[in-house]
């Protein structure tokens, strides 16, 4: 078939071209090399977790709500931890004051026994 130009010489050249353009065999062992590559690519690969391209709206909402709850719970936990630390510090301070008072009282009693009087 001539493409656009129905000249006799053109058609003859097309026929010669079609005859000359025979298929070419691939190099020896081509099929084996392709099969080997196909088998190599079939070996189990590590699964990669991938996010779906587009999440449904409710899923996005649920994720946002879960994140919000997580942040709120974390904040509450942090505040509770701070309160506990403050209470412990207060208890330690009070214990320290009590021990100091007892030590002072003990010293005062010993001095009194030795005849030393304060505030007289």
């Amino acid at each position: 078939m001539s493409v656009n130009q129905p000249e006799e010489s053109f058609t003859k050249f097309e026929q010669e071209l079609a005859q000359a353009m025979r298929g070419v065999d691939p190099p020896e062992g081509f099929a084996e090399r392709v099969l080997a590559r196909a088998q190599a690519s079939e070996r189990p690969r590590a699964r990669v977790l991938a996010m779906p391209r587009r999440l449904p709206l409710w899923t996005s909402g649920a994720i946002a709500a879960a994140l919000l709850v997580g942040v709120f719970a974390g904040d509450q936990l942090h505040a509770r931890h701070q309160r506990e630390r403050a209470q412990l510090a207060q208890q330690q301070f009070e214990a320290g004051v009590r021990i100091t008072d007892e030590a002072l009282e003990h010293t005062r009693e010993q001095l009194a026994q030795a005849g030393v009087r304060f505030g007289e």
Partner: protein
Amino acid sequence: MAIANDEFRRLIETHQRMVFSIALRVTGDYATAEEVAQDVFLELHRSGERLAGEDHIRYWLRRVATHRAIDALRRQAQRPEADAEEWVEEQHVDGASVSSAGLQARLDDLLRTLPEPMRVAVVLRYQEEMLPDEIARMLGQPVASVKSHLHRGLTLLRRKAAVTMKEYVRESA
């Protein structure tokens, strides 16, 4: 799911000549053609479950081989000779006939000198015996463009064949 090995081997053996020939004549390089042809069959292996029927597979292989070969040619960034268009512009075409045997011997060299769109159109038309509208559908181009590429490619090829083969005859003498 991929194609079973026996079936895959049969498909390779049935179509390897067609796929390799397209890759070779479009890229113009033997090693690149093998690489392209292997990649095409591996792609078939991966997407085999979506292809039904021998005609569909043949069409698919031809289309993918053509596109992969064009991609490889572009990656190679091999440009045809700079004065390719000048050969087309020459108005006089002498009556020197080009013998089929001589043309066959020089064909791959001559094809390599054609610009990519003309080369692809010529390969699909004369090697694969596709009609211009089939080529246009496969390449996603207007039929008029394909016809133009074919006409210009043929003119260029014929002119070059006549000149280079005269040189070839002189060199051999």
